[in-house]
């Protein structure tokens, strides 16, 4: 189906269903319960899951397949965002031209950066990409202020030309939209103590995520994907098989840059603003973490990694000492304070510490990331089942 094997088609179907039902799946706790703060089913966060999922899927096409570790991919995301917002300022608040421009401009930029950086491999390649990204960040911050808005960045303004859009009614703001469908519009659904939000922006991002995921499966399974894995596996044999590894790697670099641009374009489509911090090196590092955490070189891993990190960033970081006191109020006073003192460094602003520990545990015990964890669990379960059936059949023999 769709040129996919049965297994891949099932994976795509699962991703599609989960993406469609995310507002339910991510909001398992009743709105008024103590656990409601673990609900992630609000538009802002769901959009981020989808967008960073796309970013990580694209990064994985480069890193997971070819093994080239870019430390500057946030630059493409940022450039995509700037291109997108300019389209929305000059042409129309309809997101289509903006997103198209994001992909194209990020792709062109990736072509330049990749062409230069891919002259080296390993650590030197990583450093070159990092240098480009930091340069972009610094430029966006300073000299390029006329284009980037400098530190404050760019937002949609009332006096933007938007030549394709009609004049706004007095007092009306420009809304990012898809042929009139407002990105920020949502439908709320109440179901007993539960509340679910279906947001236009999220569903558009989710649709793009599914398409991006499908495309990545096709790339992984294509002869082109096989060539990319061959580069990672043995560059010497690649060369002595008459293959020029560099254009293959460059193609992968540009594709992953375009994915990053797409993510950047979707970001401005959701919140209609952009600032240079989007290109800071920590943002580049984050997508590396996402990919490795989920499982580099696997199809679904980067999406899982992106989800986990964004979940922790938004949920764990909101746990403050007040919430901790609520949780542990039932303990004797001395013990309560003690436990809270222990837990406190890992939540709230300390969520990075938790992330760091999770990351270390995964890298040490599950080098294949969350996907490997899942595979091990499955094998464990299958092993047990096999053993059970073996013991069941034994007496009959």
């Amino acid at each position: 189906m769709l040129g996919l094997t049965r297994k891949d088609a099932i994976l795509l179907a699962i991703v599609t269903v989960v993406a469609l039902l995310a507002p339910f799946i991510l909001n398992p706790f009743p709105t008024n319960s103590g656990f409601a703060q673990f609900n992630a089913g609000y538009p802002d966060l769901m959009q981020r899951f989808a967008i960073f999922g796309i970013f990580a899927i694209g990064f994985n096409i480069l890193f997971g397949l070819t093994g080239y570790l870019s430390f500057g991919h946030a630059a493409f995301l940022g450039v995509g965002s700037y291109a997108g917002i300019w389209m929305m300022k000059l042409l129309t608040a309809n997101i289509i031209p903006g997103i198209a421009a994001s992909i194209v401009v990020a792709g062109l930029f990736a072509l330049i950066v990749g062409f230069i950086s891919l002259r080296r491999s390993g650590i030197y390649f990583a450093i070159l990409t990092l240098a480009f990204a930091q340069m972009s960040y610094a430029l966006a911050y300073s000299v390029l202020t006329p284009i980037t808005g400098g530190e404050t960045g760019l937002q949609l303004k009332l006096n933007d030309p938007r030549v394709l859009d009609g004049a706004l009614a007095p007092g009306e703001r420009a809304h990012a939209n898809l042929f009139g469908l407002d990105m920020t519009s949502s439908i709320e659904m109440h179901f007993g103590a539960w509340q679910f939000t279906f947001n236009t922006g999220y569903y558009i991002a989710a649709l793009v995520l599914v398409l991006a995921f499908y495309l990545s499966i096709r790339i992984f399974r294509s002869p082109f994907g096989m060539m990319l894995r061959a580069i990672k596996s043995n560059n010497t044999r690649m060369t002595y098989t008459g293959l020029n590894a560099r254009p293959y790697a460059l193609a992968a670099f540009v594709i992953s840059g375009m994915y990053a641009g797409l993510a950047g374009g979707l970001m401005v489509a959701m919140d209609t603003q952009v600032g240079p911090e989007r290109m800071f090196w920590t943002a580049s590092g984050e997508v590396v973490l996402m990919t490795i955490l989920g499982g580099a070189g696997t199809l679904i891993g980067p999406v899982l990694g992106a989800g986990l990190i964004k979940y922790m960033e938004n949920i764990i970081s909101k746990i403050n000492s007040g919430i901790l006191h609520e949780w542990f109020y039932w303990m004797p006073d001395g013990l309560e304070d003690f436990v809270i003192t222990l837990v406190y460094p890992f939540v709230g602003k300390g969520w990075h510490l938790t992330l760091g520990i999770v990351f270390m545990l995964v890298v040490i015990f599950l080098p294949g990331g969350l996907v490997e964890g899942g595979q091990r669990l499955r094998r464990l379960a299958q092993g047990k089942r096999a053993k059970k059936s073996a013991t069941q059949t034994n007496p009959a023999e």
Partner: protein
Amino acid sequence: MGILEVKNVNKRFGGLQALSDVNLSVAENTVHAIIGPNGAGKSTLLNVLVGKLLPDTGSVMFDGQSVLGRKPYEINQMGISRVFQTPEIFGDLTVLENMMIPIFAKRDGAFRMHAIESVRNERAVVQQAEDMLESLNLADARHDHSASMSRGNKRRLEIGMCLAQEPRLLLLDEPTAGMARADTNNTIDLLKQIKDERDITIAIIEHDMHVVFSLAERITVLAQGTPLVEDTPDKIKGHPKVREAYLGETAAA
């Protein structure tokens, strides 16, 4: 004129003259062995032929065209394939995928953006790869990771991958080094079969005299970067200079 003509090639590494005035002519559709003691410059010569090293002076012509200054992948596309001293295969890929890559390389050249391949075309490549594996007795392992194969089978696969490109000249650098006797004999049989079945020129560097005398039609003896003699295996066996420079040394060792 041989298919490969090496003329007056010199290569220095610092103070070491690794190759000095090497002249070599390999006739088409023959098996030509290059022997010589350790450090004689055999691998260096091979690296010059495949474009990994640029000689200081001299010329290397393959089928009337100079290979010097071309990239290794370009030289490969001219029709020269190389088997390495330790097998170089795609360890993370399956055996079948290993075999598909040279077939794509043969079909499409050094680069093609075949992100989307028609099912029919891809099936044809898979079929070709499977036939090749069948002829190498590796078909049962086709879905295994190639890294998990035995040394002998890795060598078979590597040779098969080179053949899948239908090269006109196959270069082998000590293909049986570090192999058990049985694997060595398998490799000899495989190379004999290749020689009988195909129009192909083989240049082989080898330490194992058993391998050399089983396969070679001509032998060049290299010592200290210079060809000492070149002759048929029978003549080489009896050559006093060779016994002194090379065979004598192995007998003593």
